[in-house]
């Protein structure tokens, strides 16, 4: 029997798991509310996945196009999400984003500027106006560094290279702590907290071709699920249309949407701008009809409509996929993305410096002279832990979630740029509400047996004599998800995928990590594999249940949106029998005014906003 009393216990009022944009925003706010705040992270501070975000953060600042307004941002978000978004979250996001972006500037962020000295904004897919506050193509770095440098002066305790293993609950079933492992030593620790915020990001590491790093193993989803929380919308996995496809060792690495925002063209191997052939009816009236009109839009003509390259990500990713399947793909099985003919070399280096550098070094290709080759790469989870829109609390009392690991804001498809603003807005709301919750609470006792069980599960992986190699199991998982739960899905493939998952799950019971507990990546891999397997199963089963194609979820056997499915979310939780339980849950009727705004024609809404502006 394990001696629990020797394990170090650390107490905080509010504990945050994950130190990307959402986690740091939450920590800063919880600390500002006078809470003793700790933040646990798997990597070093400042290295979280937010750093990879390139394009910018969407906020209706109206610095570049003064017609912009929260209502139009809200409308764009709902349409991009195919109306499956949580209406209230989309409203809060659109309304609060501008102030949160300006606050970031106050904390030291140095955005690119307009001629008038204000925060500059760029065009992005699905956004009506130039809306993304940005710094070249390294906006995520700017965000995380700003929050980090501000955060270290706010009395927040940062616990680096520390992996969360499982949540602890008290007798009432409220969250009261979490068991973690220090990666450096392999030692365990217990954090006691009155409320816990998950800001753990997504689970894109389940796929072979992904823009996600090793950290993206769905820890938050799996830990919340194990603790009894509900997950939602997991069938919606965004495949970003433009990942690198060559060389193989960097397949999947992100190529920012800003390339298209700055005018980049998508071409097939016949040199055709194929996106003109893939404009969905819903977006016909807002998309350029000819190449000539698209060129006028790029030159700044306010009456010209947007080029089809800037349609939403789900549409562009499917189009590239179709072109490749039809034999019109690029040399290495993607599409050509050309910025060289659209902008001067100097402009490209100024606006897209890290893309220039990335291709120069990794692909030995000069993007100011030649087209890039790109193809879809797993990028983002729209779904996640189900939360209350106003408080961000999950279905487990005391557990909150924000950022990518929370569901709701983005519906069936996320617009580029809405993630960084999501982190700022909902990170803040989570920090604020978790602090409010903690103010009326005392620390409570945890179940010692549960702690022993969590630790034993972890150490068994090291202690068993022999067993499956975690790296190879992970590879099997990636191949299975790529092949059977990919960008285009069908009943047949999903069922194969689910049965393959069962096989991997049973091998996982015998997973063995070689070596000792000190900084052992094989062991870390094995620990996170449990989480990835839970997430993968939830994704595959939800994808099988949703018999329609909506946003990022495409079923070859059920093409097109089915009206009835608009009224349901798929909610996943752990049943009494320990098995995964999925249900179709009816969506509540949206607020009438929000519904009116989202369903307005763009012309009517623009007139309405202009009227409001002259009145005020």
């Amino acid at each position, binding site marked *: 029997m394990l001696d629990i009393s020797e394990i170090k216990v650390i107490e905080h009022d509010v504990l945050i798991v994950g130190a990307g944009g959402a986690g740091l925003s939450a920590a800063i706010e919880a600390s500002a509310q006078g809470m003793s705040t700790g933040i646990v992270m798997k990597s*070093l501070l400042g290295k979280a996945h937010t750093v990879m975000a390139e394009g910018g953060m969407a906020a209706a600042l109206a610095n570049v196009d003064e017609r912009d307004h929260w209502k139009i941002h809200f409308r764009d978000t709902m349409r991009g999400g195919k109306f499956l978004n949580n209406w209230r979250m989309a409203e809060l996001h659109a309304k609060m984003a501008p102030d949160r972006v300006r606050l970031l500037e106050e904390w030291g962020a140095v955005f690119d500027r307009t001629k008038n000295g204000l925060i500059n904004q760029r065009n992005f897919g699905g956004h009506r106006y130039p809306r993304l506050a940005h710094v070249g193509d390294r906006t995520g770095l700017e965000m995380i560094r700003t929050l980090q440098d501000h955060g270290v002066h706010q009395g927040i305790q940062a616990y680096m290279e520390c992996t969360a293993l499982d949540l602890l609950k008290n007798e009432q079933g409220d969250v009261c702590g979490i068991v973690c492992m220090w990666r450096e030593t392999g030692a365990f620790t217990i954090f006691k907290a009155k409320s816990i915020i998950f800001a753990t990001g997504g689970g894109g590491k389940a796929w072979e071709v992904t823009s996600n790093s090793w950290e993206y193993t769905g820890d938050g989803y799996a830990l919340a699920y194990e603790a009894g929380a509900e997950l939602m919308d997991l069938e919606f996995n965004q495949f970003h249309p433009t990942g690198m496809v060559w060389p193989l060792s960097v397949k999947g690495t992100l190529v920012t949407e800003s390339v298209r925002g700055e005018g980049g063209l998508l071409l097939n191997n016949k040199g055709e701008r194929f996106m003109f052939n893939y404009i969905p009816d819903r977006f016909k009236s807002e998309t350029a009809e000819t190449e000539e009109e698209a060129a006028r839009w790029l030159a700044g003509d306010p009456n010209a409509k947007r080029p089809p390259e800037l349609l939403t990500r789900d549409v562009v990713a499917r189009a590239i996929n179709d072109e490749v399947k039809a034999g019109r793909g690029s040399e290495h099985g993607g599409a050509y993305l050309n910025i060289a003919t659209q902008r001067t070399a100097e402009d490209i280096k100024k606006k897209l410096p890290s893309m220039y550098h990335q291709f120069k070094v990794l692909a030995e290709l000069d993007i100011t002279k030649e087209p890039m080759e790109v193809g879809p790469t797993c990028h983002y989870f729209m779904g996640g832990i189900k939360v209350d829109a106003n408080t961000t609390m999950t279905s487990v009392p005391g557990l909150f979630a924000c950022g990518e690991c929370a569901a709701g804001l983005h519906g069936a498809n996320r617009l580029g740029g809405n993630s960084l603003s999501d982190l700022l807005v909902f990170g803040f709301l989570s920090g604020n509400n978790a602090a409010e919750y903690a103010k009326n609470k005392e620390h409570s006792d945890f179940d010692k047996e549960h702690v022993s069980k969590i630790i034993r599960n972890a150490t068994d992986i090291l202690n068993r004599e022999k067993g499956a190699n975690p790296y190879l199991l992970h590879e099997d998982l990636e191949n299975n998800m790529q092949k059977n739960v990919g960008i285009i899905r069908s009943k047949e493939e999903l069922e194969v995928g689910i049965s393959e998952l069962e096989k991997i799950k049973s091998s996982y019971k015998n997973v063995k990590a070689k070596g000792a507990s000190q900084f052992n990546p094989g062991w870390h891999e094995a620990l996170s594999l449990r989480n990835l397997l839970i997430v993968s199963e939830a994704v595959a089963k939800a994808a099988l249940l949703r018999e329609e194609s909506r946003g990022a979820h495409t079923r070859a056997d059920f093409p097109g949106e089915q009206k009835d499915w608009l009224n349901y979310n798929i909610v996943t939780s752990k049943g009494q029998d320990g098995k995964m339980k999925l249900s179709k849950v009816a969506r509540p009727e949206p607020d009438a005014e929000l519904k009116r705004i989202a369903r307005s024609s763009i012309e009517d809404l623009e007139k309405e906003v202009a009227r409001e502006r002259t009145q005020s």
Partner: protein
Amino acid sequence: MAKRTFNIYRGDQNHGDLVSFETEVKEGMVVLDVIHKIQAESANDMAVRWNCKAGKCGSCSVEINGKPKLSCMTRMNEYGEDEIITITPLKTFPIIKDLVTDVSWNYTQNERIKPIKLAPEAKTDKGYVMYQKDVDRVQEFRKCIECYLCQDVCHILRDHDKKDEFIGPRFMIRVASLEMHPLDIEDRIPELKEDYGSGMCNITRCCTAVCPEHINLTDNGIIPLKERVVDRYYDPLTILWRKMFGNKKKKLPPIKK
């Protein structure tokens, strides 16, 4: 493609050796790919840090054939076909295990630097007003991905181990990014001289040479900061001026509506 030989440091601060591995190298691979391949094939518990694999997070810093580099941005075809590649951890910091070092000292340096303080009069209801030409300079410094290669190569830290006297190039340019911010009104010049050790740097430019973000640390950051210290403490005219008109002399750009 042929098998290649890699000598990789295995061990901790006190005990360790270069261990030889052989693996197949395919077209387009970077050194980090090789490390991962060896890890999966024959050294499951080999410790290495990495995250983004695209030169944006600064996690995978190591020394390759003695040169500080990001392993994710170092292509195998930079080396001769038969060349044996030696991969070791950053020399300036204590080794935790294999290729992972304890870089926590850097985080304590950052906390010593006074945070940004913007001139309140520059705030409008549309945010702060500053112009691109005024922010270009600090944007260069803000490209820093905190890979600590500059800290690793700096001879004051690496060879003389004077970590208690000099905060190192990374944090010199962090100070520069604040001091040269067009709207910042905080004063960090006294700390620069007394606490951060700006006088220690003798401008060998090694930090600039290894920076994967191509930040001109020395010429654009460190030298101007050293000049500000000299102006403040050693220039008789400035000393007289300060006695007459007070300390802070930052000029803010004009605000246009």
